[in-house]
């Protein structure tokens, strides 16, 4: 279920075919191939990376989650949208992975936003007061606008 939506022409113009090849060889996809990362794929819309995450994120998954997220950042996106609509549950180890990504995106000048939080995941962000630290949107459309 891994897909890239980079238009051919813009890829050629921006020299992003190299990245495309890199992705096909592994990187984020490899993390997914191992079956351990909750990151199921990355969709690109120009320089926006939309990261699809699936399943519960706890101590068992959080390191692979973090690794996959930081691999996406290495591709230098202008914006990362982490889609959590298929994540029914997350604990503080998953939050820690996102805080790490947030810190790195700020340093690199990228923007990060989270979309599709389930009630339980939203509650976790509220309990940890991180709902005011992260940019959170209801949908991808809203995040890109």
């Amino acid at each position, binding site marked *: 279920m891994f897909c890239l939506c980079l238009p051919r022409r813009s890829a050629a113009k921006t020299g992003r075919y190299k990245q495309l090849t890199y992705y096909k060889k592994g990187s984020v996809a490899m993390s997914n191939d191992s079956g351990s990362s909750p990151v199921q794929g990355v969709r690109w819309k120009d320089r926006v990376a939309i990261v699809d995450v699936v399943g*519960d994120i*706890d*101590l*068992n998954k959080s390191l692979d989650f973090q690794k996959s997220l930081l691999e996406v950042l290495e591709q230098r996106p202008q914006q990362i949208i982490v889609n959590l609509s298929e994540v029914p*549950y997350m*604990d*503080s*180890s998953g*939050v*820690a*992975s996102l*805080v*790490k990504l*947030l*810190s790195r995106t700020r340093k690199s000048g990228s923007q990060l936003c989270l979309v599709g939080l389930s*009630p*339980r995941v939203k*509650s*976790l962000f509220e*309990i*940890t*007061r*991180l709902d005011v*630290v992260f940019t959170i949107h209801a949908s991808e459309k809203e995040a890109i606008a």
Partner: protein
Amino acid sequence: MKNLVPQKPVKLSLCSSPAYLPIMRAAVEKMCLMIGFDPDTTGKVVLSADEAMTNVIRHAYDDEEDKPIEIELTPLGNPKAEAIKICLRDWGKQVDPSQIKSRDIRDVRPGGLGVHIMTECMDQVDFQPCNEGGTLLTMIKRR
């Protein structure tokens, strides 16, 4: 057919591997829902139990995956359960309970949120070092 709800404690003997976290969460969730907690409160109890077991795995056992963890889920109140008590026993490194406290969460950095979550979500959180080694954590949540 009576709509029976648990009256007696449920005991889980688990290994200190993160692989067992979903099993523990499922048991806590089911117990909470059966005794009549709403979904929001149930979610907070499940999260607190998860954070407690995660802390044991990471800090008491230093990520060793074959150490024992015993969890007891007890409905409190008779005849109708009004609360749940969760006891989590480990035999790992002990920490002075006075040193176990929530960090300043205004400092945005990865990690260290487990104790804050437990104290925020549960009505009572108590760490007791045991004479035979390890720690007994007792958490209570009322409806």
